[in-house]
């Protein structure tokens, strides 16, 4: 048991923290809320040049050859500043399915493009019924003459607006889990993307696939093995999101304590009042608790160990704890915190989005219950 970052990890963390503090200011976050693309090409290029998209991928494909754990360290720092650029999405939702399920040819062709920033990739999973169960997938893929024809509608696809590659899970057979994963170019005929207006002002879309034809070589992994792939990606996504929430929680705590020290009422700093101290110590304890469960799950995922329980615990705990941290921050800030001009609401709106993404607390507790044979 060793909870301390090693030298490489610490260096990566420090570099990322400094980089994001300079490059991803509150002004930038606000600008991107209203930007039609939702991200800045200039900043994206700088992130690409840091090599960070390659952190968890093999050197063979131009990556760093580190692990998912190191990528999580980056995500924590990205989460601290609410990075709008699609770092999380491109690597976990776009790159990881190829990395874990793709054949050599697919990896050789696609991973270098993703790592070098030439491609932005995302994942289309949810449909009208937003449950995370195989039977909720009705989008169909039918094979004929080595060509799959895709039909159906996907919902809540992050950054589909700027992605050139979309990983899609679709039904390829009659059994409930007869699902397969495909790579579909977003410019294929019959793909229509329409953006959604979300609580966190991020860029999510609905995508309709109408007789979209793709070669059978775009199948990732074996036919009807899609659910298994998706479960792995969903675990990584749940933990990646938890790391972002951890970073965000730390920032909210820091900012709130700072405010409590400087804001004066009744002739003294509000942070000297017992009630405010109670709030702040509660936040600090929640954040402290989050770090272990999140990194425990990240480490187990990176080591390919059985991590199902740890993932369920980490995402359910973090979804709720980050939400609480933001709620307490609002309470400490009083009126100013719920104004558009204040930074707290930037965090609390995204906290809600992160809580419900990749399974909310109840979803993961239900998973945990199954794992405990309850």
């Amino acid at each position, binding site marked *: 048991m060793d909870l301390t970052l090693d030298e490489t990890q610490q260096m990566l963390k420090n570099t990322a923290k400094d980089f994001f503090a300079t490059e991803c200011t509150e002004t930038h976050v606000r600008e991107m809320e209203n930007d039609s693309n939702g991200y800045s090409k200039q900043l994206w290029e700088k992130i690409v040049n840091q090599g960070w998209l390659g952190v968890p991928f093999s050197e063979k494909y131009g990556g760093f050859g580190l692990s998912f754990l190191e990528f999580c360290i980056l995500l924590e720092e990205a989460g601290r500043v609410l990075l709008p650029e699609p770092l999380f999405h491109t690597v976990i939702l776009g790159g990881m399915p190829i990395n874990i399920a793709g054949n050599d040819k697919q990896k050789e062709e696609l991973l270098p493009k993703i790592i070098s920033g030439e491609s932005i990739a995302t994942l289309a999973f949810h449909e009208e019924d937003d449950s995370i169960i195989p039977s909720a997938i009705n989008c169909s893929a039918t094979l004929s003459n080595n060509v799959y024809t895709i039909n159906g509608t996907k919902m809540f696809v992050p950054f589909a607006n700027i992605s050139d590659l979309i990983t899609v899970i679709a039904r390829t057979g009659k059994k409930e889990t007869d699902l397969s994963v495909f790579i579909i170019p977003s410019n294929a005929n019959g793909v229509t993307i329409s953006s959604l207006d979300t609580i966190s002002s991020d860029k999510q879309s609905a995508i309709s696939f109408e007789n979209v034809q793709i070669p059978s070589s775009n199948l990732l992994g074996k036919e009807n093995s899609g659910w298994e792939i998706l479960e792995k990606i969903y675990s990584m996504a749940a933990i990646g999101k938890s790391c972002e929430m951890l970073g965000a929680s730390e920032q909210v705590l820091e900012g709130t304590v700072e405010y409590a020290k400087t804001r004066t009422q009744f002739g003294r700093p509000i942070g000297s009042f017992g009630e405010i101290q109670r709030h*702040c110590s509660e936040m600090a*304890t929640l954040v402290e608790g989050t*770090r272990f469960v999140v990194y425990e799950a990240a480490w187990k995922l990176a080591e390919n160990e059985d991590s199902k329980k740890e993932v369920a615990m980490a995402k359910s705990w973090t979804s709720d704890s980050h939400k609480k941290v933001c709620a307490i921050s609002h309470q400490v800030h009083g009126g100013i915190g719920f104004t558009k001009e204040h930074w707290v609401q930037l965090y609390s709106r995204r906290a809600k989005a992160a809580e419900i993404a990749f399974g909310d607390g109840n979803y993961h507790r239900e998973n945990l219950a199954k794992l405990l044979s309850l």
Partner: protein
Amino acid sequence: MRFAFTKEEESFRKEVREFLQNALPNNWDGVAGNNLEEGASDKEWEFTLEMRKKLADKGWLTMAWPKEYGGQNASMMQQVIFAEEMTLARAPGRDGFGIRMLAPTLMIHGTEEQKTQYLPDIAKGYVQWCQGYSEPESGSDLASLQTRAIEDGDDFVINGTKVWTSSAHRADKMFILVRTNPEAPKHRGISFLLIDDMKSEGIKVNPIIDMAGRHNFNMVTFDNVRIPKKNLVGELNRGWYVGATLLDFERSGVEYSSRCMALLTELVEFAKNNKRGGVPISEDPNIKKEITEIYTEINVSRGMSYKIADMQSNGEVPNKESSMSKLFGTVLEQKVADLGMKILGLYGQLGPNSKHNKLKGKIEQEFLSTVSATIAAGTSEIQRGIIATRGLGLPKP
């Protein structure tokens, strides 16, 4: 980063586990149906002392001590593992007062004579110490304590009252904080003394029975009790700082999580195997949800403890982290007990003496005895104050 134990650590865990399987009676269930050995019956106390000697023989009691005092300089993680296994098995015999509190203090502040006189007996598990700190008028504000020691020839003469003194009725000896200079600022007029015999003339131990009906706490009164001056530890009037001495021993509070896990495991087993309204209790959606929440929180609590041990391994001194661990862990103990009440339904109200009870009535005992968890050894409010002011740097109220 590595979220697994090493091979050596795992084999040590196995060794402890196997030892406990042999040393504890079949179907061992903890002392008095709960985990607070201090509240034990005479018979259970006898067994506690027997276990303590066995642990001493294995060298495990003193594993954290420096080698020069017969210890093993055990790593923090090894200490964590030992504490986890002892607590998971609900095994009695560890010695908080002698091994973990007084001995380190003596190693740093004691005279050679004091070390020779006291340390070997502590190491062998031969002697039970108790701690004379709190007073009726000095609870959270401990430094305001008023028990007086006046120098008289070669002796100190002690007068006053100590309260919440755990195990005083079992103890052979006591270490005590007394006021030796009432004129000085409150932290600078306190001395740290050793009382060699709890049966000394003038000492009276009065039981305080807690709401669970158990005798753990006491009120101890001192009426002109004489102790020799050589029993002063450290300098006169510097006792506050002597008492605050902590060696680098594991103090992660990992017992909170393993104690909760032991009980939760038992509750889950019960909930799966018992029905209410024809359905296994574990299938009640509310119960199920609460079990998963608490299971997760136990892991969070475990993580907080590992973090403290990790900091200590790296030579850092935990501060707010210890308060967080205590704050979180003690509330968790109350939550598990309350979950037990919900799982048992109306049977939750039956104690160990009822022939209709379930789980031997231990849930009623847990529920009642964990009320003190968030109060004893620094209330939750004190912990939050430490986190807020020392940890986060907020101004003092």
